[in-house]
């Protein structure tokens, strides 16, 4: 670490540009929102993965077979777990970047612009995952008489409770991503007004 510092010191004027503007309050809120994103995403993944439930289903009069309900039975739930894992990993990376910017004293417009772009992209992905899981969950809860898809929540009550909680948490994650993009856009606009 010290050798990098020694090499950086003479090149400081050209290699490491100084932070363009200070916005400590904005960065603190940014890091807090990213921690919230990581937390809700992680809990949603854990709740979904640990939702396996086994019940004895009577397939013929007198014979009952243990059938289980897992999240991997539905591609929508698999996509939800995958999207939330990407969101968690992304929140770690960008949280570290925000903390580094805070330690450095300020942030740069380039960083905020990249945050806007990738946060908005991730909002699309997580919102699609929430919608997909929500759609399947609603059919599982109410059933659909037109397509003859029977509801499963009367037999697998605990499984339904697990994925309802997971979908609610992923909704909180997508709202957090929305707030993060608004915050980054606000910080970008404040930089222009200050100049």
């Amino acid at each position, binding site marked *: 670490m010290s050798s990098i510092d020694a090499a950086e010191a003479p090149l400081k004027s050209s290699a490491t540009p100084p932070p363009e503007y200070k916005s400590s309050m904005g960065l603190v809120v940014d890091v807090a929102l990213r921690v919230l994103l990581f937390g809700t995403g992680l809990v949603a993944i854990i709740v979904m993965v640990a939702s396996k439930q086994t019940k004895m289903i009577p397939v013929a009069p007198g014979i009952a077979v243990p059938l289980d*309900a897992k999240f991997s*039975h*539905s*591609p*929508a739930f698999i*996509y939800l777990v995958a999207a939330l894992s990407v969101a968690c990993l992304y929140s770690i990376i960008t949280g570290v970047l925000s903390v580094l910017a805070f330690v450095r004293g300020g942030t740069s*417009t*380039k960083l*905020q*612009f990249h945050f*806007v*772009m990738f946060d*908005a*992209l991730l*909002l*699309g*992905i997580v*919102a*699609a*995952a*929430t*919608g*997909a*899981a*929500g*759609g*399947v969950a*609603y*059919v*599982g809860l*109410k059933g*659909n008489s*037109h*397509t*003859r*898809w*029977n509801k*499963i929540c009367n037999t697998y009550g605990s499984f339904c409770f697990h994925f309802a909680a997971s979908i609610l948490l992923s909704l909180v994650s*997508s709202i957090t991503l*929305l707030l993060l*993009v*608004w915050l*980054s*856009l606000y910080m*970008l*606009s404040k*930089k*222009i007004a200050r*100049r």
Partner: protein
Amino acid sequence: METQFKEVEVVNRKTSFTVKDLAVRLLALALTLVATVLLGVDKETTTVSVKLVSSLPPVDLPVTAKWTQMSAFVFFVIANAIACSYGAASLILILVTRGRNKLVPIMVTILDLVMVGLLFSGVGATSSIGVIAYKGNSHVQWDKVCNVFDKFCQQVAIAIFMSFAGGIAYLLLIVLAALKLHK
């Protein structure tokens, strides 16, 4: 004097809209309109031969597939209708108050992001229902229906693709707004 001139230039650039913005907004409006209409008028009636009683020959029953039968499709149509009317309202608002009002670009960018989330969640819901309708789900005994309602399923697929492109257009509007602030 020099810095004053630069400030005025920057403020003007922030509040005015380029042709690129308006073109992408018009594209988003058109795509969501097409998606709404495609699923809104989607209806297919076919006959299915059902064996009611084993001794009698199979009876032909007419069955109808309509978008109102599935709540995910209803959500999709409503979300795309909201995005389309918002696109029209924001386009008119921008053209009417061109550069004069400072609040309009901020509100428009904020609501653009809400539209991105709404459109993508509609796409996700409809495509997950569509995948189940296309392939079925053996674990929960949900049969596929797209072998019977072929035209209906194809129209749903096209509507999903149009709405996805509309969501990408709204995302592009956010990136353009950020680029305008970045420069």
